[in-house]
């Protein structure tokens, strides 16, 4: 049972290398986006893709430590939301402290939308992670998403001096003094 959960800190980090995992149902364009990420990166990056979690146990030893997870959701298919929700159960809690994000795709066709935008917003509030909205249709759009993700990946992999993902999480919510007023 413990093998089926993806844990962030159970492996030794690789020297100067970050690893991103893209999770999303088939046909979204993960491989194309992976290439786009590698093209736009300014540090050494490895991209892995998966349709669902948990990842198969047999290849666990050859797999490097996953620094960042992107959950890709297609707004025109209810199936992608369902696979993402199932995969979320197999992710260790420490990933939600700045080491993962949700990406909502195909936002430009509101007439084909099959899930409510509020469901995505609710997911992001529930798991306290960012949502990025975009699409993979043109090069420019993929590059735009890639840049935003890479900034977070760099911090999550520890490649930026004196910055950790937990640090960024502290900036997200109000300070203790204000919270007591609620």
């Amino acid at each position: 049972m413990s093998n089926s959960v993806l844990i962030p800190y159970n492996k030794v980090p690789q020297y100067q290398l970050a690893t991103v995992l893209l999770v999303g149902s088939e046909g979204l364009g993960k491989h194309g986006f992976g290439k786009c990420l590698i093209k736009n990166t300014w540090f050494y990056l490895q991209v892995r893709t998966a349709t669902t979690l948990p990842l198969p146990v047999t290849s666990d030893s050859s797999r490097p430590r996953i620094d960042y997870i992107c959950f890709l959701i297609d707004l025109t298919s209810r199936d992608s939301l369902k696979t993402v929700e199932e995969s979320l159960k197999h992710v260790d809690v420490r990933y939600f402290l700045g080491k993962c994000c949700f990406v909502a795709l195909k936002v430009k066709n509101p007439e084909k939308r099959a899930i409510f935008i509020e469901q995505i917003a609710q997911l992001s509030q529930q798991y306290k992670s960012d949502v990025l909205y975009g699409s993979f249709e043109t090069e420019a759009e993929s590059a735009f998403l890639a840049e935003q993700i890479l900034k977070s990946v760099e911090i999550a992999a520890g490649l930026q001096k004196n910055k950790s993902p937990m640090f960024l999480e502290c900036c997200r919510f109000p300070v203790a003094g204000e919270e007591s007023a609620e």
Partner: protein
Amino acid sequence: MAPGETSTSTNRCMTTPQTFKSRLSHRFTPKRFTPYGRTPQSRRISTAVPTTRGRRKNVHTRTKSRSDSSSEAEDLKGFTNVTWRVYKLSPLYKFSSAPKDLKRYGQLLSSCVEAANQKGLFVENNVSGKALFCVQEGLKKTADDPDAIQILVKGKKGLGTVDTVILTATLCGVEMEGDLLVPDVKGHFTYYPVLLVKSTVAMTDVLITWLMRHFDCKISPLVFPPVYMAWMIAMWSGALANTNRKNKPVELVYQVPSECEGIKKITYTIEAADCLRVWNSIHDSKSDMFTEEEMSTFISSLEEHFYSLFRVKLNAMQLSCVGTSLCYIGRDGILKIYSAEHVSCILRHLTELSMEHFSLV
């Protein structure tokens, strides 16, 4: 650590950010990032019986409609079994429903139809038309609703000698909640959320360009994305049109993506009675509001059943048409109502959808 609590509330309460938080902490609330409006988390459904059960209005409107429920069904029968195209409108400038104004509009539209006819816009020549505007009874439910207007164009088609109705259109708004117009301009504008048209494409174009030019408004087809169609089918599969007659089965038509060769669409038909059983087990029949969770449970249960039988993932495909025993709805704004009793409830829902588009601004 359990993920934080979600606010899946059953009634119409939106998650409002608290007033004490500083602006910095709003950085990650979804409201800032999305330019899209919120859809309500629950919607009102009507019950099978066309009485006023389930209306949240004041007492005086309730008594007003209760007295004509049977005659109402008669009046609205003209709406049934006709394929309408649905359009949404922006407010009409200087539109009045006084009889002499309506007569004037009729004459103007007739002359426009004549001009179009002479230009040769119609495929069948000699479509001479006379337009009539009149107030439609039975659709005005509350004091807020504007008078529903019916537009008829009668003429002779081709070389026939009999006068036939070439175009039927209805401008209406049923149970509009709240006024979207700013009070100081209210005197000049009339807001009709929904326009239903039944006619050929050329005639519809003539009517729409005339309305747009004359009243300075914008008319566009009201498309139904798969989310809204899922709402409608979830809400209305539970309402049986007529308990004596055999009800039409619930039908979902899916469009297969082009990567799969050899099959273009899938039609999924379910007996109305079985659908009702699923609906009753999901939805508490006493409550009036139908929530988002119930809707997604209903749709996902139907799709999972299909998957368990045929191993075909319907939720990865697009819903293109939806049919229940009350009505049939197509994605591009096509509507066909089968039951006269539920006309006002369906029109009420369309009014709501159209007003949501408008209130995105």
